[in-house]
């Protein structure tokens, strides 16, 4: 349910401020580059689950290891479909995930 994910204060998701007036961080960073950076980071987090997300039109496609796919409208909404494709919770507090990230896998 969208209202719970944190969209308060307008249509743009709270994480998506690059390129807007009131941009956060590197104001010269284009929206495109910021988007690429986010995709890249999310993919590193998804990698241990053998999932991958890629840019597609103005949205994203999430692909699982068996070829199953899901459309994701806003990158911040990736976690729910990712958990469905992975078949298990994706937890940033999972020590196994943290070990994988810390070891640069």
């Amino acid at each position, binding site marked *: *349910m*969208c*209202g*719970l*994910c*944190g969209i*308060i*204060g*307008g249509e743009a998701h*709270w*994480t*998506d*401020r*690059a390129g807007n007036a*009131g941009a*956060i*961080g*590197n*104001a010269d*960073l284009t929206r495109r580059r*910021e988007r*690429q*950076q*986010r*995709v*890249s*980071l*999310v*993919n*590193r*987090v998804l990698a241990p689950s053998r999932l991958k997300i*890629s840019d597609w039109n103005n949205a994203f496609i999430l692909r699982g290891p068996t070829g199953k796919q899901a459309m994701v409208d806003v*990158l*911040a909404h990736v*976690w*729910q479909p990712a958990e469905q494709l992975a078949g298990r*919770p*994706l*937890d*940033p*507090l999972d*020590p196994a995930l*943290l070990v994988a*990230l*810390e070891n*640069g896998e």
Partner: protein
Amino acid sequence: MSELPDVRTPVHVLTGFLGSGKTTLLKALLADPALSETAVVINEFGEIALDHLLVREVSEGAVVLRNGCVCCSIRTDLQETLRDLQAKRAEGAVPPFARVILETTGLADPLPIVATLLADPVLRHQFRLGTVVASVDAVNGLSQLDTQPESVKQAAIADRLVLTKTDLLSDRAGPERLDALRWRLAQINATAPILQAVQGAGISHEIFGADLSHAEGRRQEVDHWLAAESRLRSDESPVHRHAHDHDGTVRSFSLRFTEPMDWTVFGVWLTMLLHRHGDRILRVKGLLNIAGADAPVVIHGVQQIVHAPVHLDAWPDSCTDSRLVFIVDGLDPALIERSLRAFLRLGQQPAANAA
């Protein structure tokens, strides 16, 4: 850089379980001459004797009080009630209220209610989440915190804690009990100012006056949080660590970072964390030093709801460290810190493969 003020009508939430003095507080607010331009949404009129405050009835379920407040009861559901209020305001059928105070039922978790409201496309443009206030009975508060875990959670979520019935603490042990209660509340919720509702005196401004939506209030709020972060850091001795177990699983802790933070990384991390654990991350409040930004960024979240980030005009003092205060229920602070640091480090490394 100045933010455009958020001009939507704030919906303040008044919580407090049965016996917390919520009704007492509500009565005091409704009689407060300073609280005009307000619409108060209560569960039922019968709870509070409004007759002596009544000026006129607008419709069934909506009345105007002597201090200019509109008071209405929830008829069908909350969404319908707010839409109706909005319509009445637009038509001029009620005085133009500048804020809404929503009374929630005792044990209900107010956040999903508010989130539902704000997901409504009509309501979302007119209203925003305001201040969450929890009432605490000064006489019975300590034992209530002991016997009702829900009350601990409500105290943890609140932006303001209001002690009620302090005038009933007349015995010699009174001041000590009050101190003990204040201390306990501060352990649960490090950032919420603890206010006292003295009968007759208006505290509506202290409770609802300042919030993040305007520059002046923003600075004050952030000062509270930074003071809390400072106290939490100095409290992290083994002696005090033991005290945190008192309320079972609810606790406040702080994180501090000296290096400027990557906004992209922080956003990805926090959305992932709130997706998985949002119901247990009762509060996130902080001031962040974001790489590439001169002005500090204010982060403010309540469970799964994260407010649109805003800037302070300048750092409050010479310290430009990012400082975050978390109030969590049953999560390990050390693990949360390790997680954020792992993500931040990841963000600093070039990707092994192009995305």
